[in-house]
């Protein structure tokens, strides 16, 4: 009867208090922005880190993506946070992938790469996109700094059972339609708060056929629908991805681990509080027009008219969004010019994303009016992309090939939009000012972003790549 979530939760209960359980946390990932106050809290209370060997830290939000970063980081606040991360992790005996480490990268990318994210575990990070790791069949969720501190001190967190939602996606994706389009369509369907209070399990043949990279893209944006947790049942694709990774179970324990993981998927008669179905067979590439990830439409569409919206508060929100985005209702999405293109972020900076973007960029040129960045999610992704020659494809097409980090996703490092600039972005949030004060974001997939780079406007990649 239990769901995947319930099975994992049940094996992590340390003790109970009313409706809450004290959940054991197997792993914590740490980055420089949401951890300094947690370590400070420990110091002030005279506490120590309970299990430093269960933690991994990396600087990613603040780091510049240019080569000079190993010499000096200009911004004082960034420099101080990165230095604090070094001191805090060194002092506690916590592993750190520092700026010059070839494994450094975005926190949600490096965890899976190193094999520390395994089916059936609980894993947290002071970052809302931690749900990414649910792609492995884990309870993975973002927490605030107080909870980071709680996990440092106790290796546990208090949790209440979320409601259970299953999103079933069936149908074969058409060429150049990607997992990003699937999750944008799901968010558009259930809304930015449709998943609030839920753990969402993604299932169906479309999900089963996705690679781990694609599954991570889907789970990554679960939070944009309001859900703290996105999960996908582990299967042979999961096991094949993990086998041989540095922190995956060694050969002597591998078979035992896999047999354990095979017991995790939700039972066929599991109970769901809400079910949502999506037919992906006719899905088109999606693009956002507004300032919430729910504002996604097929690329063939037009900017919607708020006056046609019957709900007054939604109408007011849409008006505001169009004003911020400087868009007029009825405009074809493919008529919107862009100034910048960003291919990267914890949503879309894995090797498959870069291959898909490079396939569109190959033999074409970035439009004269566009600045385009490709930012691999980690040093390992970067190395693999270079071994495959993707960096040369991008550079020859006029893209900038950068060092790993969160980059232009969130406006905390030198990569940001200037006021009024419009960006085709493979990241996850199109909030006002997210990519820099006054910047305007259109979310889309890596091949769609590459198509925008070469045409200078939002474009249907299926026409560009024809």
């Amino acid at each position: 009867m239990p769901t995947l979530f319930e099975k994992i939760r049940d094996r992590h209960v340390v003790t109970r208090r009313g409706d809450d359980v004290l959940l054991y946390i197997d792993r914590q990932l740490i980055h420089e922005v949401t951890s300094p106050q947690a370590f400070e809290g420990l110091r002030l209370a005279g506490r120590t880190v309970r299990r430093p060997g269960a933690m991994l830290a990396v600087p990613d939000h603040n780091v510049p993506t240019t080569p000079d970063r190993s010499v000096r980081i200009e911004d004082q606040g960034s420099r101080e946070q990165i230095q604090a991360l070094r001191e805090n992790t060194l002092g506690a005996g916590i592993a750190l992938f520092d700026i010059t480490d070839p494994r450094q990268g975005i926190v949600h990318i490096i965890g899976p790469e190193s094999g520390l994210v395994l089916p059936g575990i609980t894993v947290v990070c002071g970052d809302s996109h931690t749900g990414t790791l649910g792609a492995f069949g884990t309870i993975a969720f973002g927490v605030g700094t107080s909870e980071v501190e709680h996990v440092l001190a106790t290796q546990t967190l208090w949790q209440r059972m979320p409601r259970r939602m299953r999103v079933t996606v069936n149908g074969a994706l058409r060429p150049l339609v990607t997992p990003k389009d699937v999750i944008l369509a799901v968010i558009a369907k259930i809304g930015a708060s449709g998943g609030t209070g839920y753990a969402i399990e993604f299932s169906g043949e479309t999900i089963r056929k996705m690679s781990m990279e694609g599954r991570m893209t889907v789970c990554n944006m679960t939070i944009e629908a309001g859900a703290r947790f996105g999960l996908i049942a582990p299967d042979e694709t999961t096991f094949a991805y993990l086998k041989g990774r540095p922190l995956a179970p060694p050969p002597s324990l591998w078979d035992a681990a896999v047999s354990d993981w095979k017991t995790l998927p939700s039972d066929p008669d599991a109970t769901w509080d809400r079910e949502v179905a999506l037919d992906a067979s006719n899905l088109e590439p999606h693009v956002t027009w507004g300032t919430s990830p729910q504002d996604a439409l097929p690329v063939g569409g037009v900017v919607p008219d708020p006056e046609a919206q019957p709900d007054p508060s939604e109408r007011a929100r849409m008006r505001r969004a169009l004003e911020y985005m400087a868009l007029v209702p009825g405009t074809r999405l493919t008529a919107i010019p862009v100034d910048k293109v960003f291919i990267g972020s914890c949503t879309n900076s894995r090797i498959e994303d870069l291959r898909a973007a490079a396939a569109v960029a190959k033999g074409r040129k970035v439009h004269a009016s566009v600045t385009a960045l490709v930012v691999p999610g980690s040093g390992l992704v970067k190395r693999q992309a270079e071994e495959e020659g993707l960096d040369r494809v991008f550079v020859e097409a006029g893209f900038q090939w950068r060092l790993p980090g969160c980059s232009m996703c969130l406006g905390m490092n030198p990569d940001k939009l200037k006021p009024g600039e419009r960006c085709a972005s493979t990241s996850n949030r199109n909030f006002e000012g997210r990519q820099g004060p006054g910047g305007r974001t259109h979310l889309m997939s890596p091949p769609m972003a590459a198509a925008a780079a070469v045409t200078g406007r939002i474009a249907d990649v299926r026409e560009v790549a024809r």
Partner: protein
Amino acid sequence: MIEKFVSLNTVGVPLDRGNVDTDAIIPARYLKTLKRTGLGVGLFFAWRYDAGGAELPDFPLNRPSFRGGEVLVTGENFGCGSSREHAVWALMDFGFRAVIAPSFSDIFHSNCLKNGLLPVTLPAADVRSMIDALLAAPGGKVAVDLPAQTVRGPGGDIHPFRVDPFAKQCLLEGLDEIAMTLTAAAEIDRYERERKKATPWLFPDLAG
């Protein structure tokens, strides 16, 4: 640490927007701090100030009649987006002690309770009429009584609200949650021993 919360009777500040995300509450450039304090300067920065740094007079936080208010009354899905606890720290540093909305994002709601900022969920229609009343007669008072679990709107209207009993106790007493959890240290030890036997592959030393 949780700051104690008992009751408030203060000017209600209406922010008539839905889906207010944590990037709007506190832009990322203000997160470059090692402290929990001083974040009020960045609160709603892009909405409070124009490009030249001058206050935008129409934004509620800048209107004289709403200054000093400690209760924010706002739209659905407040605090969506990033997990940054800085959003709560910024609201509290600015002077807010409670937020009333039809719904909150899960992480923001949790972050509120860890710090003593009271998130009050009321029916959308009640919040709508409270915002309308505050906009129609700026300076109206909103009272929040945590022990009684009621809000009194500017028109004297009383609205009961729900709060988790444990969270309520923590807020009223300003408890240290980590200290309480550490009273279960023996159970955590026992859990770890058993788990190490059952799933030994989960116990490599990541720093090793």
